[in-house]
């Protein structure tokens, strides 16, 4: 009995029968294969990430050097930076689009839809998603949505400029800010497409996990990655419809004279508006009813992925698997009832403030336990610091610092001073910016061999980690303290106030760190493209990991598994002796190695 339990070397020359029959377009463009769709999402998302990163660079240029004339950029952006200095209208459009693109088109596409599509069927032993055609449809709608969002820079008045939260009346009245002319309408249309696409994709993931798990794969044997996608997708299904409703109402307010969000007696640009009786707070409630679960939609998969990368490089099971699963479930439930902590100073009833404060802080309990379980997974480890592992360690670190920052903001009393300051900016960048970004990179380094049959360069990868974690931490850690000094967010410059003068030096440091961070990403793209064509060939299971995707060749053939695998054990069987090494993949029968769960 010396036959390894995982597949042998990849057999590219021997494609599965039937693959010849489909042409290039069906195979690579309008494919219904979840792996191709996953990769399409990842590539689209990475490109959107480049756009979002470029916008971040513009923001930091402005805040670090508020009066400097960037003559080169004035040629590239004659409207936004006519004399080399950014105009305020362009700055607000850039801030709004940076937030929108990073939240919805980068992290959602790469991490949630991209890796969700790629990993879920493979890890549950399925040949494809439950609804492959719907899956293809959701990708192409997502693609369209991203294209529409980018196009909004070129419409009259420029891109939307009311922030990614799009609070009316600013977002509803076209004379309030230039971006609220056509730009905001295009923003709404793009978001509507995004929601349609994301809903279909979430529905698909939930249905897949429910219906096509391989025999033997009970819910309590699923990897935390699959669990996190499962919970995140349920949240997506329940949380996005209220944003749809709000977007419809905003559109009607903008173009058809209704007054859902517009109160009586508004005078904008010295002109009295005819609207009566609407409620601007209604938008905020509907928006954050989505907005808060949405951050968990993004962060849960990041945590799940980090949890699955850890054991491959600690060579022992994760700590407290069952408890972690229940933490994910608890966080999912709690995330639906805490949205009001974004509105402590909005004029909402102070009693609601007390309620939201108390329930928000209960989230720290499952999240603390989850974080500590990740940390405790390192105890007694035989650690291998591969690139993917470094990024996972970074996830633990940023999740710790970002999560602790949440204690300030969930606390209504502390939030009175910190609301809408850079403390908030620092906090959410650590969480839905940093945790997700590092998990995304970790996932790419970890599953790149599976996806493309080639391995990424470790030296470049490790350099990339150092150039990502260190500047990232400096930028957003310092921003917390900008907030404590009272620096409001979404400011075009910190020049107009005496009390903010001393923050200008800090902003300069932050901007320099941001430039280091952004240029560090060149290492990643270089590595990615180089490895895609020239990387050394990957084995089926280069990390000696246990989940089902590692039992098939790299890259997996169309249909993934020759025969549906029969699962015999949980996803974390490390530290047991088999013919493969110190681990047992999930399909190894109980008479070869003891079954833990």
């Amino acid at each position, binding site marked *: 009995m010396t036959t390894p339990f995982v597949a042998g070397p990849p057999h590219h020359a021997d494609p599965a029968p039937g693959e010849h029959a489909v042409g290039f377009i069906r195979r690579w463009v309008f494919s219904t294969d979840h792996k191709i769709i996953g990769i399409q999402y990842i590539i689209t998302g990475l490109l959107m990430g480049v756009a979002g990163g470029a916008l971040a660079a513009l923001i930091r240029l402005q805040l670090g050097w508020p009066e400097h004339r960037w003559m080169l950029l004035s040629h590239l952006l004659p409207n936004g930076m006519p004399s080399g200095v950014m105009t305020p209208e362009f700055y607000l459009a850039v801030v709004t689009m940076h937030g929108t693109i990073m939240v919805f088109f980068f992290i959602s596409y790469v991490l949630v839809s991209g890796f969700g599509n790629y990993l879920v069927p493979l890890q549950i032993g399925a040949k494809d998603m*439950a*609804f492959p055609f*719907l899956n293809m449809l959701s990708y192409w709608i997502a693609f369209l949505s991203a294209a529409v969002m980018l196009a909004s820079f070129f419409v009259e008045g420029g891109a939307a400029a009311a922030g990614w939260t799009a609070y009316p009346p600013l977002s509803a009245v076209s004379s309030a800010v230039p971006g609220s002319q056509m730009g905001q309408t295009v923003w709404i249309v793009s978001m509507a497409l995004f929601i349609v696409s994301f*809903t279909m994709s979430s*529905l*698909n993931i*939930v*249905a897949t996990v*429910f*219906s*096509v*798990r391989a*025999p*033997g*794969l*009970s819910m309590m044997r699923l990897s935390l990655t699959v669990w996190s996608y499962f919970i995140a997708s349920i949240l997506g*299904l*329940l*949380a*996005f*419809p*209220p944003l*749809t*409703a*709000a977007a*419809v*109402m905003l559109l*009607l307010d903008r173009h*058809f*004279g*209704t*007054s*859902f969000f517009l109160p*009586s007696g508004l005078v904008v640009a010295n002109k009295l508006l005819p609207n*009566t*009786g*609407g*409620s601007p707070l*209604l938008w905020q*409630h*509907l928006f954050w*009813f989505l907005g808060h679960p949405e951050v968990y939609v993004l962060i849960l998969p990041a945590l799940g992925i980090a949890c699955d990368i850890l054991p491959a490089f600690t060579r022992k099971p994760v700590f407290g698997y069952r408890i972690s699963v229940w933490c994910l479930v608890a966080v999912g439930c709690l995330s639906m009832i805490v949205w009001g902590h974004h509105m402590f100073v909005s004029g909402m009833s102070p009693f609601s403030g007390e309620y939201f404060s108390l329930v928000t802080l209960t989230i720290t309990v499952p999240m603390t336990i989850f974080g500590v379980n990740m940390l405790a997974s390192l105890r007694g480890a035989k650690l291998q610091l591969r690139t993917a592992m470094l990024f996972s360690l970074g996830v633990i670190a940023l999740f710790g610092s970002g999560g602790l920052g949440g204690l300030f903001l969930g606390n209504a009393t502390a939030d009175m001073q910190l609301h809408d300051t850079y403390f908030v900016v620092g906090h959410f960048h650590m969480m839905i910016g940093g945790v997700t970004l590092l998990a995304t990179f970790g996932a790419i380094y970890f599953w790149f061999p599976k996806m493309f049959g080639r391995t990424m360069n470790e030296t470049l990868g490790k350099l990339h980690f150092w150039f990502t974690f260190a500047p990232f931490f400096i930028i957003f850690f310092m921003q917390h303290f900008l907030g404590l000094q009272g620096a409001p967010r979404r400011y075009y410059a910190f020049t107009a106030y005496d009390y903010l003068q001393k923050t200008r030096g800090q902003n300069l440091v932050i901007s320099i760190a941001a430039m280091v961070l952004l240029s560090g990403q060149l290492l990643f793209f270089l590595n990615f493209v180089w490895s895609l064509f020239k990387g050394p060939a990957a084995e089926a299971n280069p990390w000696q990991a246990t989940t089902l995707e590692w039992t098939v060749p790299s890259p997996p053939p169309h249909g993934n598994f020759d025969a549906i695998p*029969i*699962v*015999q054990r949980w996803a974390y069987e490390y530290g047991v002796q088999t013919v493969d090494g110190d681990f047992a993949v999930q399909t190894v029968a109980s008479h070869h190695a003891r079954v833990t769960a």
Partner: protein
Amino acid sequence: MTAYSIAGLKARATAERDVETGRDVAQGFSPATLREDQVRLGLWMFLGTVTMLFAAFTSAYVVRRSGSDWRHVALPPMLWVNTIVLAASSLALEAANRSGLGGGWRAASGAFAAALALGFGFLAGQIAAWRQMVAAGVYLPSSPHSSFFYMLTGAHALHVVAALGVLIWGAAATWSGDRNRRAWAARMGVCRTFWHYLGAVWLFLFALVSIY
């Protein structure tokens, strides 16, 4: 999700038990009903999101209702006719289902045609109701109540259009010669769930805008 769990989850649960006892697991798996289970599950999840959509509209309605400028507009009596038409359509669909299960394909085909016709009749009736409102000088921005009326009926009508597409897919199975009883019943299940659900949503919305 209840409908799904009955057929699908049980099969899977059996499969899991079998692994532990080492018996042949493939037996517990039924690829024949898997697709139907998935479609049913997908439909229920979709209806879950639609419920959240209308729940959001409803809470917005309740909040906006407390505004000082709230003024009820007269709703066209036509809506009562539309309600009866939609209810009749649901009943016809049930009749089609019952006839089909009993093997009465002619009756089933006729009843299904009636259900479809009544469904389109409902849409036409809603459009007529809108036209009556417009003729009476009540437009989308006339009052918050009218804004909600047009928006809610519009959103509901869009879902009805989608459901009619699904009904046509069900009707095709009823009218065609190829009659796999189980597959047909599964298709009917999807049609009935979706259609009755939208009927219930309509009753709720109609009550909301007329009473509250």
